[in-house]
């Protein structure tokens, strides 16, 4: 098996502590200073000390991961032996699934959470469809399966000192930042909610950056952003991975400039997304000022209930929200289908988004942890495995729903959001496969089937029934709170759409291509 990170060296390794008057500002700002330093000491050179192998003393940072005994083969690439990974937001939908996956491949996992997600969902009168035990019981259950998690209840925004103390104690070699409120509608409810979301997300991230700078500057931060930061520009310009490629040119007034390496314009669609964009800039600047290292992950809309680890035991399952605030679209469609209420699509339903299955997203994160960036490196990856049109997804859910004897209807309601419901979309997403070796394997319909299997279980269906009233959207971007007017209701397979998907991405055996071409197929059938 080829290890894509085999040739990376100590420069990328979080265990390497740079020594020998390293001054990254040798470029530019402190030229005189470094010149003086080098004149005083002609043997000046950059050396490191290995935190894991201090007996080596000071040496040149040129050992490759392949040569270093601390890096060992896993199916995701070479990984530091017993790598210490801290997950901020470990109690959430993604945090918990990732914690178990990392434990399984031998990482020492620590985690932090303030149970905010549980509180917010409860505040909104909803609940997770799949019941999840209290954190203490979760950790006990995980331990029975051999997964040891070091957990602390900390609010990263308000209890900075506790966070610093925990960082000091654990000295994580990678930090996964999931500790953000993941909801656009929740941030649009009213001033209090918007303040709460941006306070927790943006200021929380800032607090972590400062703590990292002081305590673990060699550690890498894998920060969860969202594809929603880019929005859906009506010009149809490609959504590059965070920064323009080197051959992008700005032309104006008969002159031209290279845009290579500059952050691309962001086009956030809610106050939650605006906060995420601010995070992007905060992390970008922290890397520039303090030589922190970070991957900013622009994750597509996530869906699914399965990873090998969480499916092992029902006490290990991760949460599943289906309410209008915290449910993601496919998860909500499946819940609506199980409840026998029409699937709600907003406006024309021709919005196009990038998607990724839960298991694939977890795989991406592990691969990113395995291949840390270099000092000061800030990089962005677009984490999607396919692009779909919302209305096509409703059709796909309906199709799988039939296998479970569910008669699914689809309901178009007026769009509570301020967004174009017909737009071009071209996502550039090549790094994960090219540089990190992602092999996506979650098939959309298989995952939908798994979701149906789980949600139609009587004990879970009962929980859905209990909270049936929070499924349909009521939070409007203009601040009103009322049911959306229904534009039309139709049966799956009867609707024709005007727009065509211009781009067909699918990493899993072209399954999305099949789905994207849903109309063409139908037309062929008719013919």
């Amino acid at each position, binding site marked *: 098996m080829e290890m894509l990170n085999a*040739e990376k060296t100590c*420069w990328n390794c979080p265990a390497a502590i740079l020594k020998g008057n*390293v*001054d*990254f500002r*040798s*470029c*530019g700002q402190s*030229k005189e200073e*470094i*010149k003086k330093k*080098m004149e005083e000491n002609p043997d*000046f050179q*950059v050396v490191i000390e290995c935190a894991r192998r201090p007996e080596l003393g000071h040496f040149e*940072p040129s050992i490759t991961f392949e040569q270093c005994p601390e890096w060992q083969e896993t199916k995701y690439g070479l990984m530091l032996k017993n790598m210490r990974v801290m997950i901020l937001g470990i109690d959430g939908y993604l945090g918990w699934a990732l914690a178990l996956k990392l434990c399984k491949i031998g990482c020492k996992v620590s985690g932090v959470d303030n149970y905010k997600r549980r509180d917010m969902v409860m505040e909104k009168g909803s609940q997770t469809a799949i019941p999840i035990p209290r954190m203490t019981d979760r950790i006990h259950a995980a331990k029975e399966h051999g997964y040891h998690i070091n957990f602390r209840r900390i609010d990263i925004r308000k209890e900075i000192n506790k966070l610093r103390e925990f960082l000091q104690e654990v000295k994580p070699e990678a930090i996964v930042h999931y500790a953000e409120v993941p909801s656009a509608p929740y941030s649009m409810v009213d001033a209090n909610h918007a303040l709460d979301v941006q306070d927790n997300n943006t200021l929380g991230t800032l607090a972590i950056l400062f703590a990292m700078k002081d305590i673990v500057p060699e550690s890498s931060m894998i920060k969860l952003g969202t594809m929603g930061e880019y929005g859906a520009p009506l010009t149809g310009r490609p959504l590059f991975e965070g*920064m*323009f*490629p*080197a*051959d*992008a*040119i700005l032309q104006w007034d008969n002159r*031209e*400039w*290279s*845009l*290579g*390496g*500059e952050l691309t314009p962001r086009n956030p669609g809610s106050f939650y997304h605006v906060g995420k964009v601010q995070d992007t800039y905060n992390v970008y600047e922290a*890397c*520039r000022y303090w*030589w922190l290292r970070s991957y900013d992950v622009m994750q597509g809309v996530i869906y699914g209930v399965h990873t090998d680890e969480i499916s092992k035991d029902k006490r290990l399952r991760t949460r599943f929200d289906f309410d209008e605030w915290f449910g993601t679209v496919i998860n909500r469609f499946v819940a609506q289908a199980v409840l026998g209420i029409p699937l709600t699509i907003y406006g024309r339903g021709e919005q196009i988004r990038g998607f990724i299955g839960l298991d694939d997203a977890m795989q991406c994160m592990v691969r990113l942890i395995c291949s840390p*960036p*270099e*000092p*000061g*490196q*800030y*990089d962005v990856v677009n984490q999607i495995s396919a692009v779909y049109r919302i209305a096509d997804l409703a059709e796909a859910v309906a199709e799988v729903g039939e296998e479970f004897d569910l008669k699914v209807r689809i309901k178009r309601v007026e769009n509570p959001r301020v967004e174009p419901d017909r737009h071009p979309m071209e996502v550039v997403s090549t790094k994960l496969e090219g540089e990190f070796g992602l092999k996506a394997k979650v098939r959309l319909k298989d995952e939908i089937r798994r979701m149906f299997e789980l949600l139609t279980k009587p004990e879970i269906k009962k929980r859905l029934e209990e909270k049936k009233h929070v499924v349909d959207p009521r939070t409007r971007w203009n601040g009103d709170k009322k049911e959306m007017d229904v534009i039309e209701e139709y049966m799956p397979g009867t609707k024709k759409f005007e727009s065509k998907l211009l781009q067909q991405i699918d990493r899993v055996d072209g399954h999305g291509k099949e789905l994207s071409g849903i109309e063409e197929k139908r037309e062929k059938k008719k013919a």
Partner: protein
Amino acid sequence: MEKNFQESKKKEKKRKLEITEKEFQKEVIDSKKPVLVMFWGSWCPVCKRAEPLLEEIAIELNGKINIKKMNIDRNPHIATRYEVMGTPNFCVFKNGELVKRKFGSQSKKQILEILENENN
């Protein structure tokens, strides 16, 4: 097999672009051909984006002009000697001397412009 071979070739080329202080004398100063050296930093997103361009140009020029890159933090002596003050810094060396320099983000066309008139 063939694919593996090509990939390893590709990798080799990639590795060859990067040089260190120890190789500088041999690869740049003593070179009979003109050499373009891109000085770069790991913290510079512009440099990261320019890497594939540089590889492309290296393949296109096919040895007429040697293309190299050097990390300024790992090789501070050379970076200081040539007063690299901004990255990416494209320096053209001819007969061991620095003859041309341009810094900041450059498109492929602009990099090729720097190299014009240098390959004779």
